[in-house]
C-alpha cells in the first residue's frame, strides 16, 4: 500500500447468513484510495458494490456481517474500533450520500434539524454556530437563499436540490472520505452532469477522497481517477480509469463497455452480455462469470486469483485480453 493512502481495503469479506444459505455479497475485495482521489465502483445490481460501501461505514444490517479483511482508514484499523468510535467516524471523517434523496432525508424534519444534528453529533458547538455552518455548506453546493431554505422540509425541494442538500450534509464536517451510492441515478441527466462536476471540484479542493458507486460506466469515465469493476462480490478488474476503459483486460469489463449505447451505430442492435447475473446464494468455486464468458474453458472452474498487471492495475481472469483497445 502506498504510504499516502487515505483508505486501504484488503481482502474485505461481507457475508449474509440467510436461512437458505450463506451469500457472499463481498468476497475478497481490495483497493486503496489516496487523498483527493475519486474512485468509481462499478457493477450490476447485486454485484456487492453497495454492500462494500456499507461495510466501510460499518452499517451492514443483520443477517449480514463483515467476516474478514482489513480496512485501514487514515492508518487506523476500523475493525479494532468500538461501536462508539465507529459512530464518531461516520458522518464526520467518513460521510455518505445515498441514491434517492427523497427517501434518505427524513420527511418530517426540517433541513435545519437534519443538518444541525449532523454537526452536533460530532462536536460540541453552540446551535447558532452549527446553523451558520449549515448555511455555509448549502451555499457551497449552490443552493440559493440558503438561510430561508434551511427552514424548509425535504418535500419542498426539487430532486436535484434535495441531492445537493445531501451533499451539503456530507460536507458539513469536512470528511476525508465520501461514499456516494448511486447519488445521481434518480436525477435528470442535466442535473446529474452538474452535480458530478461540482462533486469533483469540491473533493479536489478539500483533499476528500470519493468513492462513487454506480452502474453507469459513462459517469465514471467523466468523473473518476480510478475504477473498480465488481462482479458477483469480487473486483474483477481495477486500475486507472483511462487504462481500464481504453484497454479492458477482463472479458466482463469489455462486455460492459461494448454494451454502452453511445458506442453503437444508429439502428444497430445494442450489444448484450449473454446470460444473467448469477445468484450469489451457493455460488461455488470458480470464476463467477464463466457461464457468460466467450473465453471460458476448463481452467475457469478454479477461482482466478487477483493478478497484479502493473502498478495499481489488477485483473481476475485466466484468459484476459492483452492490451487490445476496447
Amino acid at each position: 500500500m502506498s504510504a499516502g493512502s487515505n483508505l486501504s481495503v484488503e481482502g474485505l469479506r461481507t457475508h449474509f447468513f440467510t436461512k437458505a444459505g450463506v451469500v457472499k455479497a463481498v468476497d475478497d475485495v481490495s483497493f486503496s484510495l489516496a487523498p483527493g482521489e475519486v474512485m468509481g465502483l462499478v457493477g450490476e445490481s447485486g454485484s456487492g458494490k453497495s454492500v462494500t460501501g456499507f461495510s466501510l461505514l460499518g452499517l451492514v444490517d443483520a443477517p449480514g456481517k463483515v467476516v474478514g479483511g482489513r480496512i485501514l482508514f487514515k492508518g487506523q484499523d476500523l475493525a479494532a474500533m468500538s461501536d462508539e468510535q465507529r459512530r464518531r467516524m461516520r458522518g464526520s471523517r467518513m460521510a455518505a450520500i445515498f441514491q434517492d434523496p427523497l427517501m434518505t432525508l427524513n420527511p418530517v424534519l426540517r433541513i435545519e434539524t437534519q443538518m444541525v444534528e449532523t454537526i452536533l453529533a460530532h462536536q460540541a458547538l453552540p446551535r447558532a454556530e452549527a446553523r451558520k455552518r449549515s448555511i455555509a455548506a448549502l451555499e457551497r453546493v449552490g443552493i440559493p437563499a440558503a438561510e430561508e431554505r434551511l427552514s424548509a422540509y425535504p418535500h419542498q425541494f426539487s430532486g436535484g436540490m434535495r441531492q445537493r442538500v445531501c451533499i451539503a450534509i456530507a460536507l458539513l464536517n469536512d470528511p476525508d472520505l465520501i461514499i456516494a451510492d448511486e447519488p445521481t441515478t434518480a436525477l435528470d441527466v442535466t442535473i446529474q452532469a452538474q452535480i458530478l462536476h461540482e462533486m469533483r471540484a469540491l473533493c479536489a479542493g478539500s483533499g476528500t477522497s470519493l468513492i462513487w458507486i454506480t452502474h453507469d460506466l459513462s459517469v465514471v469515465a467523466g468523473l473518476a481517477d480510478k475504477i473498480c469493476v465488481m462482479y458477483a462480490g469480487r473486483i474483477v478488474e481495477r486500475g486507472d480509469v483511462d487504462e481500464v476503459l481504453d484497454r479492458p483486460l477482463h472479458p466482463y469489463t469489455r462486455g460492459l463497455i461494448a454494451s454502452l449505447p453511445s458506442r453503437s451505430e444508429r439502428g444497430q442492435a445494442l450489444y448484450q452480455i449473454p446470460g444473467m447475473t448469477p445468484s450469489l446464494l451457493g455460488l461455488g468455486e470458480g470464476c463467477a462469470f464463466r457461464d457468460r464468458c466467450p473465453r471460458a474453458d476448463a481452467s475457469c472452474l478454479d477461482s482466478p486469483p487477483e493478478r497484479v498487471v502493473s502498478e495499481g492495475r489488477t485483473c481476475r481472469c485466466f484468459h484476459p485480453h492483452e492490451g487490445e483497445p476496447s
Partner: protein
Amino acid sequence: MAVFILRRLSQSVVLVLVMSMLVFLGVFAIGDPINTLVAPDATEEERQAIVVHFGLDKPLYEQYGRFLGNALRGDLGRSFKFNEPALALIAQRVPATLELAFASLLLTVVLGIPLGLYAGFRPNARSSRLIMGVSAFGFSVPAFWLGLMMVMLFSVFLGWLPASGRGTTVAILGIPVSFLTWDGLKHMILPVINLAAFKLSLIIRLTRAGTQEVVMSDYVKYAKAKGLRNGRIVLVHVLKNTLIPITTVLGLEFGRTIAFAVVTETIFAWPGMGKLIIDSISVLDRPVIVAYLMLIVVMFIVINLVVDIIYSTLDPRMRLEDQR
C-alpha cells in the same frame, strides 16, 4: 390554518344539525315514554295532562322544532325522571368519566408507545414476544370479563383494591376529582386498567408495526450514516414518523372511551355518564338520551379537529396552509 378551522366548524354545524334529526328520530322510534312516566293507577285525565305537559301530543316535526329552538338557547330539555335540565344532569357526571378516560389515555401513551418501540426494535427478543403475547390477550378479552376477573382477584380474593365507587374526592374549581387522594387513586386503578386494556394493546401493536417499518427506511440508515447517537435516532427520527398514525388512532379511541365507558362504569359502579345513559335508556328518559348523544357528536367533532391539527404539526407534508 384559521381558514381550515373556520371551514371545518361550519361543516360541523351542518353535521350537528343532521345528527340531531337522526337522534331525535331514533329516540322517537324506540318507544313511547308515557307508560314509564305515568303511574299505572293514574286516571285518563291525569295521563292526558302529563302528555300535554311534555308536549307528547304534538306531531313529530313540531316536537323537533321546539327541541331545536330550545337547544339553540342551550336548553336540551328536562329529564322526565329527575325533572332537572338534561344538560346539567349530564354535566354533573362528565368529570368522573373524563377523569377515567384521561387516566386510561395517559396509561396507554406512557406504556404503549415505549413498549411498542422496544418490541419494534428487537422483534426477536423474548421480552418482545412476551409483550406481543400479552397485548394479543388485552386485544381479544372483552372488557366486562376482564373487569369482573380483576374485581374477583384484586378485590375479593386479595382484598388489595376497592371494587366500586370513586373513593374520596377533592374539589378543584368546584369539580370533584379522585386522583388527588390516595383513596381515590386506589379506586381508579382497576377501572383505568380495564378501560385502557384494549387501547394499550392496540397502541403497542401499532407502534411496533410503525417502528419496524420506519427502522427499515432509508432515512434511518442515513441517520446512522450521519453518525447520530442511537437515542436521537429513536426519539427523533423514528418516533416522530411512527407517531403520525398513532395520533389518529388515539384520537378516535379517546372518543370511543368517553362514549362507551358504559361497561367499565357499570362494573365498577363509577358514577359517570355511561351509567347515567344506561339508566336513562331503560326508563326512556328522552331528553337525557338526546342530550347525551348530541354531546357525544360534538365531542367527536372536537376530537377530530384536534387530531387534524396535531397531525399537521407532526407531518409537514400535511400542513393545513398548504391546502388550497
